């Protein structure tokens, strides 16, 4: 009897008057005998009992329960069809002290929103999901739900659900019980007073888990829909007891509430002053660029090309960093994606004393060709008077030109001599600096120190740079200017 009177009293976490319709201030929009009405009362009572009204966020779904926010005097977010678990995930993460309830029907959760519920459960999001399974689409007027029993008629299964056309009823608790993360999964049934009391307890447990900082809880409620089922409220509850509870047995499918500790609390946020360093925007990661640009106007348009793994992109990056250190405007544009996968790689680097318009380089004045296909592809695009560095002892006859400056050597072989083929790109960089003096030695060194993170590699690269300069000194004679 005491239980009965409690149920009749309006919960604190319901609004005293409902603003949905002026003429219906004390009535919900739910049909008489609808499970949603009962479940809402159980939820409101649990919120009251746990004293969490102020910090509860209800995520309302699309379905008959779309208007929960007219009744629940808690923070409310109305979500799209099926996406409530995603919305709840982020709301909870944004406000970790909140108690977030994702309230969803079977179409919402078990059809259109299967990905969202599965992944929220699998991540163990610390939210509470109330899953109202009435085995039909209520709001849209009685279409098939993934939970509709085999053989049952709906407006979209006029001949009854066929296992060959629509497959079998989807068992949500059983499916989620195959995941490791969920803390609490229980199915209850609004089939009689006992079932309602059990539903109330389960909903309260689901909220308590969240209050205690535990993970994902879901309570599936077999819920009558007398209107669409075309039955009386009494017969609807009978169907729950006699038919749906057979297909969807009630019970606890997962209960780790005693075993799982609270999830770790978030680390305290840094102060705003700490942010730039955390974002690697401190002095160690930026260049204090000179106020004035070099006086002699330059516009180096460099194309670097070779096989993936030859350090094409890095060579370009060091050049761009060196240009930046020298106070030039710079740009670095890579080829990316499948082109890289097929084995060739190139990038466009521009260093200029004026603001750079296009970072795309079609007429380079420096070509750094680390392999023969790259040389062949780009040598004829080089501007007369420009520089071509090629990674081999001799030029293929069809790549010869007498209006550009060639510096050819096996830069990777020189790198082998230093101890690692992979610094061949930096040997070539040394040769380029010696031949064409793009920027000063200090700036190249600063760029290397900036780009190369390990001390061992930096040492290799510095040796490579010197070796490249020596090689170029031997080679460069009679340049075209």
């Amino acid at each position: 009897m005491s239980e009965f009177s409690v149920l009749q009293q309006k919960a604190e976490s319901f609004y005293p008057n409902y603003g949905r319709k002026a003429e219906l201030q004390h009535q919900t929009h739910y049909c008489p005998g609808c499970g949603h009405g009962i479940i809402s009362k159980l939820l409101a009572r649990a919120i009251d009992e746990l004293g969490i009204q102020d910090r509860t966020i209800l995520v309302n779904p699309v379905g008959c329960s779309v208007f929960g926010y007219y009744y629940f005097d808690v923070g409310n977010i109305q979500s799209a069809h099926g996406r409530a678990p995603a919305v709840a995930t982020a709301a909870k993460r944004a406000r970790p002290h909140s108690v977030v309830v994702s309230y969803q029907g079977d179409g919402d959760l078990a059809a259109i929103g299967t990905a969202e519920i599965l992944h929220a459960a699998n991540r163990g999001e610390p939210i509470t999901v109330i899953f109202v399974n009435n085995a039909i689409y209520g709001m849209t007027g009685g279409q098939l739900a993934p939970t509709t029993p085999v053989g049952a008629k709906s407006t979209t299964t006029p001949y009854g659900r066929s296992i060959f056309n629509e497959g079998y009823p989807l068992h949500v608790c059983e499916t989620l019980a195959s995941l490791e993360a969920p803390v609490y999964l229980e199915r209850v049934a609004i089939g009689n007073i006992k079932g309602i009391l059990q539903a109330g307890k389960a909903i309260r447990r689901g909220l308590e888990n969240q209050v205690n900082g535990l993970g994902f809880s879901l309570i599936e409620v077999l819920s009558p829909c007398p209107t669409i089922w075309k039955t009386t409220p009494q017969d609807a509850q009978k169907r729950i007891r006699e038919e749906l509870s057979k297909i969807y047995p009630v019970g606890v499918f997962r209960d780790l509430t005693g075993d799982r500790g609270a999830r770790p609390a978030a680390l305290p946020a840094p102060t705003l002053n700490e942010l730039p360093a955390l974002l690697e925007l401190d002095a160690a990661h930026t260049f204090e660029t000179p106020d004035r640009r070099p006086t002699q106007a330059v516009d180096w348009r460099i194309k670097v090309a070779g096989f993936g793994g030859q350090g094409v992109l890095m060579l370009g990056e060091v050049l761009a960093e060196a240009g930046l250190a020298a106070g030039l405007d710079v740009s670095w544009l890579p080829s990316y994606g499948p082109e890289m996968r097929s084995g060739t790689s190139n990038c466009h680097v521009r260093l200029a004393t004026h603001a750079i318009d296009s970072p795309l380089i079609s007429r380079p004045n420096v070509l750094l060709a680390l392999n023969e296909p790259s040389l062949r592809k780009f040598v004829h695009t080089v501007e007369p008077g420009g520089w071509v560095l090629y990674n081999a002892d001799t030029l293929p006859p069809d790549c010869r030109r007498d209006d550009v400056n060639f510096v050819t050597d096996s830069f990777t072989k020189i790198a082998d001599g230093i101890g690692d083929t992979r610094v061949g790109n930096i040997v070539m960089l040394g040769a380029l600096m010696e031949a064409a003096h793009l920027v000063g030695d200090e700036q190249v060194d600063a760029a290397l120190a900036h780009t190369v993170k390990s001390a061992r590699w930096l040492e290799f690269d510095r040796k490579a740079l010197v070796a490249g300069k020596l090689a170029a000194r031997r080679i460069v004679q009679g340049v075209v200017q």
Partner: protein
Amino acid sequence: MPKQLIKGNEAIVKSAILAGCRAFYGYPITPASELAEAAAKYMPLAGGTFLQAESETASIYMLFGAAAAGVRAMTASSGPGISLMQEGLSYLAGAELPCVIADIMRGGPGLGNIAPEQGDYNQVVKGGGHGCYHTIVLAPDSVQEMADLTALAFDLADAYRNPVFVLADGAIGQMMEPVEFMARPVEPRHMPWAVEATPETRKNLVTSIYLEPDNLEAHIRKLEAKYRRCEREEVRFEEYQTGDAEVVLMGYGITARILKAVVEQLRATGLRVGLLRPITLYPFPVAAVQRLARSAKLFGVVELSTGQMLDDVRLALNGARPVEFYGRAGGNVPPAEEVARFVRRIARQYGVAVAEEELAHV
């Protein structure tokens, strides 16, 4: 001043965090994945949330949840992922939630490819979702602007309570340029309408439902008034050598950079050509187009698509001046020389003086 050589995609993330963004939800896709990777690295350090969602659909609704709870939040994707987000964008606009979406465009339709294209213009600028709404769209053409416009995007999102796009292409996303980041980070802000799970915000409701036609129409009119204000107050563009231009070129993103080189090349030959670069694609710089139409003889639109922004230029001109179009697609990015040939051709076609002997130098 301290500058950092940085990729466009990473610049967005650093700038977002400096602007007070504390939530990034996303799903990997080339050429936008560096955004998720950078957010995964930096967001936790800044005390924020990074989560790789199960899909772009989930990402956009996670944005919805974070924004509803009052946190500055963002996601990033490219063509196919942005297509999946369209329902959510409509909900976000309908519920008036501020958030930022970076679209680093790749080739489409379908799986297309991952090379730079500008084929998302229509779905982003015109709104691919249902209902009468707009997203505000900012189009950076440099890595510095990737940073600057991201910070602006968060401010506009809050000011208009609306999703804001940073619409770039694979080239701007993948390239590195020096960036000077904002000197002082922004304190995460408080939004009085947000659902923060506190006694003060308990009665707050975030929704896009208005069941009664009159109520929904009133809501739509309110949004409409907001968009009109945005069109009055937020138009941004850059003019380059337009003062005496007979030919006005228009393009955004990487295309605008190429067009600057084209203007330089053609000016050297005596052709009076200039560039009008929209920085906001919505709101579109309609008045600037109309002003230039008074002095220019014709407009040339260049895009990495078969012509999407083109429609907005035509609408702005409303027949006042001829518009010619040059587009490359599929991931092909035309060099300046190729575009310059197009401009010379249309200039001659419409009787704009091009000295033949000067042409010989080009």
